[in-house]
């Protein structure tokens, strides 16, 4: 019997565990221009990071290629929550799209996060809210909201107090305190954690001798960061992340990669940068993942989640030693 890929995390019911990552899939209306791409193939769609006001974004160039990776500095260009809730989401509803939609919110203050959540709660076709406390654009003093447990917890608590929708906290890898931040988010009410967002990076253009990106630094994604992402997922799962589902992402480009994240402890996976060079990746990844599960004798995806761990309990981050 073929193993089932059906997945439910934080109440989001998905045909497979593949969530199109925020910022790499627009608002779900672009990849469908490919005749061989169908949104119904994917587990869920996480919409582009949305702010309270429309946001211009960073000056170009906004993207650079690096060894096995991509550096971006979009700067959260988006039309603002008003346009997303009153124009884009209704348009998606009218199109008959059944794929679960997840909003991705980015505030500049705790209050903005809360207001964004409230506004999105009014939408009728949202399955969850992903709280982007890891966008390197939006800072809490000197650091990301997501770099330390306290600000992270404040944001999640504030968003939690807004009505109903399941909450996913999206964590940054740019901190030594991932486990503490994860725990703080769960304690503050996050229903799931997604990890990782991009690593801060820079490329310098050798002819102009200046940083290549208009914003100087950018976020590194793609295969290059996969080992860092797998380590974070493994570490958070080990430290108690198995108490809430984890969405693992960072460089997934085929079924092997997705299986690796599942074994590390991810209940679902994010598919991002690979879409830029292979729009068929979601199909290939779910086929590859199913084949792995079958070969290993797992009947359900959930049986494989965290299979790389010996024991599953909250522990002091001792697994970070190398």
């Amino acid at each position, binding site marked *: 019997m073929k193993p089932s890929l059906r997945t439910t995390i934080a109440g989001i019911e998905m045909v497979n565990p593949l969530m199109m990552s925020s*910022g*790499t*899939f*627009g*608002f779900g*209306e*672009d*990849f469908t*221009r*490919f*005749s*061989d791409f169908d949104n119904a193939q994917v587990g869920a769609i996480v919409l*582009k990071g949305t702010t309270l006001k429309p946001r*211009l*974004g*960073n*000056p*170009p*160039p*906004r*993207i*650079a*290629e690096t060894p*096995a*990776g*991509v550096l*971006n500095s*979009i700067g959260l*260009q988006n*039309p603002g929550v008003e346009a997303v809730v009153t124009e884009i989401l209704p348009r998606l509803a009218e199109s008959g799209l059944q794929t679960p939609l997840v909003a991705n919110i980015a505030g500049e203050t705790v209050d903005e996060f809360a207001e964004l959540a409230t506004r999105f709660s009014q939408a009728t076709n949202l399955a969850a809210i992903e709280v982007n406390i890891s966008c390197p654009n939006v800072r809490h003093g000197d650091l990301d909201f997501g770099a330390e447990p306290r600000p992270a917890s404040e944001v999640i608590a504030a968003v939690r107090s807004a009505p109903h929708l399941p909450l996913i906290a999206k964590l940054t890898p740019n901190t030594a305190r991932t486990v503490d931040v994860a725990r703080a988010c769960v304690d503050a009410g996050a229903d799931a954690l997604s990890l990782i967002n991009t690593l801060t990076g820079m490329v310098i253009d050798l002819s102009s001798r200046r940083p290549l990106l208009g914003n100087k630094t950018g976020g590194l994604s*793609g*295969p290059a960061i996969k080992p860092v992402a797998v380590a974070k997922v493994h570490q958070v799962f080990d430290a108690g992340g198995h108490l809430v589902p984890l969405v693992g992402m960072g460089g997934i480009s085929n079924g092997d990669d997705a299986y690796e994240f599942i074994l590390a402890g991810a209940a679902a996976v994010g598919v991002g*940068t690979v*879409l*830029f*060079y292979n*729009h*068929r990746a979601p199909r290939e990844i779910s086929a590859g993942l199913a084949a792995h599960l079958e070969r290993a004798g797992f009947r359900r995806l959930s049986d494989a989640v965290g299979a790389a761990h010996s024991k599953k309990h909250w522990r002091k981050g001792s697994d970070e030693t190398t």
Partner: protein
Amino acid sequence: MSAPRHQPSDEPVYRESAPVVRVSALRGGHCRLRLGAPSIAASIRPGQFVNVGPPGDSTLLRRPFGVYQTLDRTDIELLFKVVGKGTAALAEVSPGDELDIIGPLGNGFDLSEDFAETAVLVAGGFGVAPLYALAQALREKGSQTYLFVGTEEDVPVETSDSSMQLSFVDPDVKITLTDFEELGAVARVASMRHRPGFFHGLASELLERFLHHAGSGCNARVYACGPWAMLKRTAGIAAEYNLTCEVLLEERMGCGIGACMSCAVRLKGENGEPVYARACVEGPVFDAAIVDWDAK
């Protein structure tokens, strides 16, 4: 053409496993590449582009290229310059290899209506590549086409001496691009180096001389592709003469289909506030009048 709508495009995009039909190395590291891509060839319009996955594992992202021409309605021909990893890998392919390409992408030149009797194309270096298909379309529409190419390096396509005299330049400025002249277009090459047969100066100066000579009655339309500074000058001259000018902007891209906002081009927004449009959907061809030329 006005400020962009930021709406999803609904034009279909094809992915093809395109066999290499022919590769020819040209002077100065330029390369001409013919690919079998019937779905794309049948639907692509001048100014649209394809996104090509370089062979091998050394690159991740696809590389955008205009289409030089479509052939036999089944093939497309690219003309490109080796500048980095991706183009180096592309220049190494052999007939029979397959390339993973997607297209047609972008908006293309505005050929829907009110085209002018006279069209002036201004190109910098291999910015000439996406203009040949445009020149073909303009011929079909019956426009008289002029092409001014500026280059410090080797001319990316075959050149010959034109026997046609032009009143707005010295008679010894006669290097022409063979492909374009065969289409009936008048082509001249400008260079900042002194080179026999070349116009000494910028391509935009050729445009200026032409317009000056043609006088105020001239209802030309201007099309340009090349480096930012050249496009900016060209846009300025066109504006001075009150002419519509379309520019093809080469921006760095992620997805190529509108999903990632990587390919931002700063436009002057409705109320003077800048907006960023996507070169891969609202572009790569923009009305020069709405581009914010101070952005770079």
